[in-house]
């Protein structure tokens, strides 16, 4: 298959499929390369899909028969976990239903459905094929070598969308290997539970769903977040922790997940359920300062492969899709001009820089440095513990005057932070890191 195409897209996830879809629609000849049996076969995420992003490419997708979504989210909860308690913040609103804000989803179904849209638009599917390396002529990328016999694919532009473990990106020297403090490992179980039980336990009806994100003692002193999302008749329960912390703590990832399942507030929600799948995946969490150069001579890099994840807001698939879109737009423009050099593909960088991707990741730029600087025990164990203890004391009716309870609550928080000055510094640092 030594043919030449306008573009070869490596990776059939949301970034690659978006790029392939939009280029195919514009009439470009595109190959969509995927190493799994089918797109999505090796993909996994926490489980939230954002309507606004997807409908730009497939309008009203959620109204399709066999729409690749589970439940539309009407309530989002944030839990700060104590050992056997939690302090909760949540928002539920009927307005999230029409139109839906976001959905829960499962990647195997979603990615297959979505990549199929690209194939329907004319992209050529080449699945079960690994891109081993890029083919270069001088300093220009002109194609990819695959693990199939006779598997060289030539193209004007190679779209690198091969995910967090972007061997291609590393091999090309676009970026060095990620450091353990730039990635989280998330492990997840999909737990089957009858619909009625889900509706009762989460107080929803029909297709309504709930997301819960949690931090605190459930990550056993490591920096990390957990999640519990409602699907149609399953729950997605998982937790991600920074890989450097996981290594230091020597806790087996699945034991972390097992311990999470025993937390009283989680246990009661998943009780009686049957685990249908266990999975694990890295999440690129390096943030703004880990984003590599996005384009060069005959190539662009999108999605997780370019560290485009907003871990503060658990957004990733939408950034992946947006980057795939910008890449496609830049390539279409470059093809029209007959110039797919680095200078022409720079348009992709400019589009990303002018978008929410750049703005959001820049806003949280300091977050990564802060997480490195502050002992994870403080943020993910001591403070959540103190908050839970303070709330417990405050609401406990035991004859102690309220003014005294208020003092106790403040004292507990201050002590956990290591004194008033430290608490102030922490607050300031936190504010700065979220508003860079």
């Amino acid at each position, binding site marked *: 298959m030594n043919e030449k195409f306008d573009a070869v897209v490596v990776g059939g996830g949301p970034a690659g499929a978006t790029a392939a879809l939009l280029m195919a629609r514009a009439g470009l000849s595109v190959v969509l390369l995927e190493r799994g049996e089918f797109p999505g076969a090796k993909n996994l995420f926490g489980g939230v899909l954002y309507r606004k992003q997807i409908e730009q490419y497939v309008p009203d997708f959620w109204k399709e028969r066999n729409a690749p979504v589970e439940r539309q989210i009407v309530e989002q909860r944030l839990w700060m976990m104590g050992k056997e308690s939690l302090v909760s913040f949540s928002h539920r609103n009927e307005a999230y239903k029409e139109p839906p804000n976001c959905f829960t989803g499962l990647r195997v179904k979603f990615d297959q459905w979505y990549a199929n849209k690209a194939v329907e638009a004319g992209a050529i599917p080449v699945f079960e094929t690994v891109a081993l390396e890029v083919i270069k002529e001088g300093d220009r990328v002109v194609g990819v070598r695959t693990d199939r016999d006779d598997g060289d694919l030539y193209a004007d532009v190679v779209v690198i969308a091969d995910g967090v473990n972007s061997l291609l990106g590393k091999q090309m020297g676009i970026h060095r290997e990620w450091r353990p403090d730039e990635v989280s490992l998330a492990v997840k179980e999909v737990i089957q539970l009858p619909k009625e039980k889900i509706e009762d336990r989460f107080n929803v009806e029909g297709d309504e769903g709930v997301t819960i994100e949690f931090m605190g003692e459930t990550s056993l002193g490591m920096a990390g977040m957990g999640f519990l999302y409602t699907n149609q008749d399953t729950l997605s329960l998982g937790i991600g922790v920074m890989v450097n912390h996981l290594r230091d703590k*020597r806790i087996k990832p*699945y034991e972390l997940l097992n311990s999470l399942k025993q937390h009283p507030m989680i246990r009661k929600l998943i009780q009686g359920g049957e685990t*249908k799948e266990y999975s694990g995946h890295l999440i690129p969490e390096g943030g703004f300062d880990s984003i590599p150069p996005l384009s060069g001579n005959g190539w662009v890099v999108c999605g997780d492969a370019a560290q485009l994840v907003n871990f503060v807001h658990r957004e990733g698939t939408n950034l992946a899709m947006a980057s795939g879109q910008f890449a496609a737009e830049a390539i279409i423009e470059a093809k029209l001009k007959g110039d797919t050099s680095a200078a022409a593909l720079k348009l992709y960088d400019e589009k990303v820089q002018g978008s929410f991707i750049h703005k959001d990741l820049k806003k949280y730029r300091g977050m990564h440095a802060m997480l490195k600087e502050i002992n994870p025990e403080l943020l993910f164990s001591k403070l959540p513990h103190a908050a839970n203890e303070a709330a417990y004391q405050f609401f406990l009716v035991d004859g102690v005057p309220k003014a005294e309870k208020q003092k106790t609550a403040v004292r507990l928080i201050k002590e956990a932070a290591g004194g008033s000055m430290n608490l102030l510094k922490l607050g300031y640092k936190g504010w700065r890191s979220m508003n860079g």
Partner: protein
Amino acid sequence: MSQTGISDKLFLIRYKCDDKSHLLIKETDNCMKCATKDCNFFCPADVYEWDKKEKITHVAYENCIECGTCRIACPSDNIEWVYPKGGYGITYKLG
């Protein structure tokens, strides 16, 4: 809800195993010198196990869920990690 061990969990995943490992220990000496044997802990699929008698790290690549943690977290960068051959390795049914 009952707790399941790691082998029960991995049993839920469909694998198509290549007869050749996609995970290689680069230098066996490095494992011998490694004081912490971190890979025995951080792998979500228990792929790595230090064999005290034989003094080598066993690599159960058949269990690999292709997350990439070992490649990044091995303290002596001693694991050669590549994707399994196209179509091989894990296939999730939900994701």
